[in-house]
C-alpha cells in the first residue's frame, strides 16, 4: 500500500460562482483534508487558478484529479510533488509594540528571518513574512516565546519548475 505524500494541486477553471463548493466537495466526500487552499487569477485572462495542498497517496491523487477535471467548469488540473514546484506562503504576526523595544531578540529574529515590519503603532506592530512553510513555522516558534497577539498564514501559491503548457492546452480546448 502506497504512503501518503504531500501534493500541490493546480486547477485552472472558469471564474464562476459555486466551483469552490464543487471542488472542495470532491475532497470532503473522500474524507481528505485540504491543508491549504488559494484561489487567484491565473496567467490567462478570465481563467482562475486554485492551488491546494493535500496529503494523500498518489493513487488517490490521480483519481481525485480525474474527478476534478470531470467538473464542467474545470479546464485542467495538475498535481505536483514538492520538488517539482516553487512555492511560497505568506503570514502576518501581530505583536505588542512594547516587545519590539523591550526584547532586542525580536529585532534579531525579524532581521534573520527576512521578515518585514508592515506597520507599527502604539499598541502593536505587524510583521509579514513570505517563504516556505518550514521558515514560517520557525518564525512562529521563535516569536511565540514572546507572545503573539494574532497570527495568520495564507494558502500556498506555487508555480512549476517545468513549463505547464496550459495556454497550449487551453487553445486545444477552444479548437
Amino acid at each position, binding site marked *: 500500500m502506497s504512503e501518503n505524500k504531500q501534493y500541490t494541486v493546480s486547477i485552472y477553471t472558469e471564474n464562476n460562482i*459555486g466551483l469552490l463548493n464543487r471542488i472542495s*466537495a470532491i475532497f470532503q466526500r473522500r474524507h481528505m483534508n485540504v491543508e491549504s487552499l488559494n484561489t487567484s487569477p491565473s496567467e490567462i485572462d478570465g481563467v482562475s487558478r486554485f492551488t491546494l495542498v493535500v496529503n494523500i497517496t498518489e493513487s488517490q491523487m490521480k483519481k481525485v484529479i480525474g474527478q476534478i477535471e*470531470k467538473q464542467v467548469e474545470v479546464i485542467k488540473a495538475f498535481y505536483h510533488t514538492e520538488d517539482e514546484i516553487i512555492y511560497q506562503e505568506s503570514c502576518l504576526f501581530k505583536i505588542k509594540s512594547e516587545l519590539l523595544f523591550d526584547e532586542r531578540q525580536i529585532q534579531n529574529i525579524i532581521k534573520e528571518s527576512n521578515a518585514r515590519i508592515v506597520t507599527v503603532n502604539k499598541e502593536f506592530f505587524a510583521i509579514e513574512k513570505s517563504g516556505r512553510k518550514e521558515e514560517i513555522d520557525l518564525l512562529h516558534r521563535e516569536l511565540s516565546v514572546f507572545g503573539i497577539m494574532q497570527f495568520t498564514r495564507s494558502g500556498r501559491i506555487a508555480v512549476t519548475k517545468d513549463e505547464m503548457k496550459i495556454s497550449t492546452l487551453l487553445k486545444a*480546448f477552444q479548437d
Partner: protein
Amino acid sequence: MKETQTIKNNTHTSQTTERISGSEAVIKCLLAEGVDILYGYPGGAIMPVYDELYKYQDKIHHVLSRHEQGAAHAAQGYARISGKVGVAMATSGPGATNLITGIADAQIDSTPLVCITGQVGSHLLGSDAFQETDIVGISTPVTKWNHQITKASEIPEVFAKAFYIAKSGRPGPVLIDITKDAQFEEFDFKYEKCKGVRSYKPVPTTDENSLKAAAELINNAKKPLIVWGQGVILGKAEDAFKAVIEKAGIPSAWTILGASAIPTSHPLNVGMVGMHGNYAPNVLTNDCDVLIAIGMRFDDRVTGNLATYAKQAKIVHFEIDPAEVDKNVKTDIAVLGDAKTSLTDLLPLLHPNSHTDWHQKFKDLYKIEYEKVIKNDLHPTKEGLTMGEVLKEINLQTKGEAAIVSDVGQHQMIACRYAEFNKTKSNITSGGLGTMGFALPAAIGAKMAAPEREVIMIAGDGGYQMNIQELGTIFQQKVPVKIVVLNNEFLGMVRQWQQLFFEKRYASTEMVNPDFVAIAKGYHIEAQKVSERKDLKAAVKEMIDCEGPYFLEVRVEKEDNVFPMIPTGASVSDIRLE
C-alpha cells in the same frame, strides 16, 4: 420597436430579439430545445413560470405530479426511453429538495435531466426567507452542473448551456434555480443553442494506438469476456456493439443498466453480472484471460471484492468518462471515447473468431444455474406463486416487446434476470442509487415518451407505496401504464439479508398492507388481485388487453429468495446458488 419572436417550432432557435419576461423566456428556451412535455409541481416561487405556461399549454404539456420526487422520476423515465432530456420543475424550498432524490438517481445512472426550480427574490437570498433553501449548494454533489439565475438576461445562455451539458458526453442532471425577480424582469430575449463550453470536453479523443492495442489483446485472447453497460445504449452503439461481438465471437454479459442493448435471446448474450447476476458470467469473470469492459464503471455490485476480481485477466476498458478509468479496477488498456465511434473503429481490426470451447463453459454453468435456480423460479412445482413465473407470463404475452420499469428490491433482480428484452432501452430501473419509489413515476414518463410501446411497471409492495400518490397522475393524465405489484408483504430484499446474515431477525421488514386493488379503483384504475397460479395467465392477459392503465397485484411467496447471490465482500466466483 418590438420585433416578432421567431421560434416557430420546437427545434428552431430564435434569430431576433423580443422584450419579454424572464418566465416567458424560460418557456421559449424549453421550446427552442424541443421540449414538449415537462413534469412538475407549482408553488409560490415558480408561479410566474407556471403563469406563462398557461399561455403555452398547447405547445408544452405540463404533467402535474403528486409529489416533486414523482416529477423527477417521471422525467427520468421519459429520458431513459426516449434518449432525450427530461425536464422537471418545482418551486423553491421543499419543492426543490423533493427533487433531489430523482436528481441523485439521474446523476449516478447518467440520465439527462434539466431541473428548474424557483427561488425566493434575489434581495432575500441568504435571509432564511420563507421556502428558501440553498438548492444550488444542496444539489452540487448530485448534479453534472447547476446554476442560479438572478437576472432575466442570463436565462437564454444558461438554459442553452444546461441542455448541452445534460445531454452531451456522459449525460447527467443539471439544475437551474431562478429567483422570482428574475422571472418577472423583462429583457430582450434571443436564443442560441449552445455548441460548446470552453472548459468542457464531453467526448475524449480516441487514441488510435490504444484501439490497436485493445484489438491485439482481443485477437490473441483465448477466453475473452465482455461486460457491457449502459454506455452502449447512451452512446447509441447497439449495432456497432453487436457487430463487434459477432465478429469476435465473444461471450458478453451485461450490467443492470446495460440490459436490452442486444436481445436477451442473442446467442452471445450470456446474462447479467453482479450480485444477483447469472452464475456463468460471474464465475467465469475469474477465469477469462481478457475482460473487455464497454461503457460500464465496475460498480461494487458488479465486482464484489475488488481484491479478487478478474485478477488473472488483462483488462480493456472502453469508456467515455476518463475519471472512470482505473477508478475501481486497474486497466491494462483504456480506450477513451464514445462507444459507437470506438466500437465502429475497432471492428475492422478484429479477427473473426468463435471461441467454441470457451462458450461451452458458459453453457455448462448455465445448466447448473437452471437446475438449481431458474427452473424453480420459472416453472415452480410448489404451491405459491413465484416472482419469476409472473415475469415469464409477461414475457410470453408481450413477446419480449415490452419496456419493463422496475423498482428496487427482489422483484427488480427477478425482473432484470427474467424479463426478455427484444428492443433496446427496455429496462428502466434505478441502478446506481437503488431508489425505492422510482418505478411508478418513471413508468409514467416512459409511457408518455413512448406511447406506442407497452410499458409495464414492476414493483414490490414496499417501493410501490413510496410514490403511490402518482396513481393520481396516472388517472389525471390517462397514462395507460400497466402496474404490477409483486406483493410478498415484506421488504423482501432486506428480509432476505436478515434471513441470510442477521439470523432471521426480521426487524421492521414485515408490512401490513392496505387493499391495493381498492386504492387503484379509488383512482378509477382497472385492477385485480391474483393469488393462485391458475389465475395468473388470464389476469396478465386482461392487463395487456386493457386500453387504459391497469393495476395487477400478485400475491407471491412471502419468504422467497433471489439467487444466485454474491454476499457483500465476497468474490464474484464465490456466487451462491442457494
